[in-house]
């Protein structure tokens, strides 16, 4: 690299940015806990069936609730750094443990959907950009509009009706049939079978975005002067499309993937609820029903962390693909 000093400075700046964001999320989290109507101590006292004022005061001290806001915030931040996100008021277990249990299924769902959507969407876009008047191209445009307009949870329910009820070939819900005596391969197959519908639901929505985006991007790129140069050199059609054109057309796709990851997590919440998929989404939904604020906020924090990580990741990928981007 020509300017290692500049690159190092850029990395440091980025890292500071990330930390600042995380800090802001935590402060927000903490403030929200405090905005919640109702006092944790009062809730506790209610469960105890009442208490003397002295006991209440003692509890306040015990929970650090008599301290000023800033001190409580510092304590909270200190806890978070050590991995302590509070205790779930429903499960009475540390939030961190709960979240870590559920994060696997969510990541499985999200990555498999996004991966299929991006790969398939890009290919569809590339195909239909080359044959602009073909039925395929029109189909892509129509499907992409439809995919964006259908509510993701409704789409999931429709798929259940079609493939689990009307033609019962796929399981209705859950992640596995719960048979713990299966070997590892059968278990994977089982999970895979359960993964099909939820992943398909999410993927269809994002397929719409990506095929449309890659089609538009590819159409623009195919008009570019450097594509004409590539043809004039006598390169094969495959080289022109997949080497020269695609490499440039994919840049907006990468950018978009980074920007919309937060939306993908939101979609995952809804899909998990529909399919009873045991991930962070269902945990969030249940926490709402049980008014379990600590868990909910823990999930919020974790999700924000994942989104930030994805942003950084896409940034790196973008820099790898486009050599024009120097250290910012």
């Amino acid at each position, binding site marked *: 690299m020509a300017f290692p000093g500049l690159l190092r400075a850029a990395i440091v700046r980025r890292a500071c*940015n990330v930390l*600042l*964001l995380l800090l*802001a*999320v935590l402060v*927000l989290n903490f403030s*929200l806990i405090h*905005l*919640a*109507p109702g006092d944790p101590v009062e809730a506790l006292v209610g469960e105890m069936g009442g208490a003397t004022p002295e006991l209440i005061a003692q509890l306040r001290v015990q929970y650090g609730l008599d301290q000023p806001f800033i001190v409580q915030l510092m304590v909270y931040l200190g806890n978070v750094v050590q991995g302590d996100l509070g205790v779930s008021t429903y499960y009475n277990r540390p939030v961190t443990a709960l979240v870590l249990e559920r994060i696997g299924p969510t990541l499985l769902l999200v990555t498999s959907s996004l991966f299929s959507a991006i790969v398939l969407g890009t290919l569809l876009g590339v195909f239909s950009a080359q044959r*602009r008047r073909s039925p395929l191209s029109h189909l892509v*445009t129509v499907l992409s*509009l*439809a995919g*964006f*307009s*259908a*509510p*993701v*949870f*409704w*789409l999931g*329910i*429709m798929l*259940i*009706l079609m493939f689990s*009820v009307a033609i019962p070939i796929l399981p209705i819900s859950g992640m596995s049939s719960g048979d713990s005596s299966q070997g590892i391969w059968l278990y994977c197959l089982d999970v895979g079978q359960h993964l099909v519908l939820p992943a398909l639901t999410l993927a269809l929505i994002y397929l719409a975005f990506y095929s449309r985006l890659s089609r*538009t991007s590819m*159409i623009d790129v195919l008009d570019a002067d450097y594509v004409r140069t590539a043809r004039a050199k006598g390169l094969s059609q495959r080289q022109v499309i997949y080497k020269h054109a695609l490499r440039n057309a994919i840049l907006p796709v990468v950018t978009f993937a980074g*920007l919309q990851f*937060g*939306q993908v*997590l*939101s979609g995952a*919440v*809804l899909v998990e*609820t*529909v399919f009873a998929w045991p991930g962070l989404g269902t945990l*969030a*939904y249940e926490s*709402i*029903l049980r*008014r379990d*604020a600590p868990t*909910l*906020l823990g*999930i*919020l924090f974790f*999700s*924000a962390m994942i*989104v*930030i990580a994805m*942003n950084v990741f896409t940034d790196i990928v973008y820099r790898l693909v486009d050599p024009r981007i120097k250290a910012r």
Partner: protein
Amino acid sequence: MNSKAAPDQTSPPLIAEPTSPTRQAWLMFRGNLSAMAGLVILLLILFVAILGPSLYPVSPTEMVWMPLTPPGASEYWLGTDYIGRDILAGLINGGRVTIAIGLAAASITFVIGVTIGALAGFYGGWVDNLLMRVTEFFQVLPNLLFAMIVVMLFSASLTNVAIAIGIVSWTATARLTRAEFMRIREMEYVKAERAIGARNRRLIWSVILPNAAPPLVVVSALSTGSAILFEAGLSFLGLSDPNAMSWGRMIGDNRPYILDSWWGVTFPGVAIFLTVLAICLVGDGLNDAFNPKLRQR
């Protein structure tokens, strides 16, 4: 002396009759089949939402017939749900709630997004930096989760839902506005205005904003669609006003009964789908109308 050749009669007149950009855009929109279809559907839906309850005065919240009646088996064309409520009435009345919240949320999104984007794009420097940090923060927050928390903490009234949606959705509008302002700020006519002493306020309101309007209109249309989907998601999860019947809520309420009644979940979803689709078609049509160069070939 040489006579100059007579002016060529076959060349077209040099000055065509001027048409305003708005009229040109409207003509292009009108020629776009799918955009017009979207507009027609949208007007129909609005008509039903506004006048429907008067023309079809069945209550959506009371039991009117046997529960779980299939469509076509009774005088209630779309059947009844698990309590015996009329699905059609639910659709007609739910439309009002859905559309009202959609528009309200989109307005909030617009106001916040355009304000932040305009300030960041126009002033640049530390203002831009600060506002972009804020934007990045809101972009990183998973929007559904955050809205869920806000609604849970502050009670689920229609106003709160609209506000919650508005607060989490403005980042795209802000980015677009900022980009437009930064682009237009550098244009010759803005520099000319500045050179004759125009004040910042005039520049922002009367010069840049009208020129930035076309893409902003398009993105507002799309964000109305997003807001409607968002509201549907929230009410599906049971996080909307318990007194209001909205389409998302119908789907959520009827979900436990899909094995016995597919109609309870299907029709409200179709309603949401058609509404948002119509909005998207109109938005796309507006986009093409304002940008004829970028028109899909």
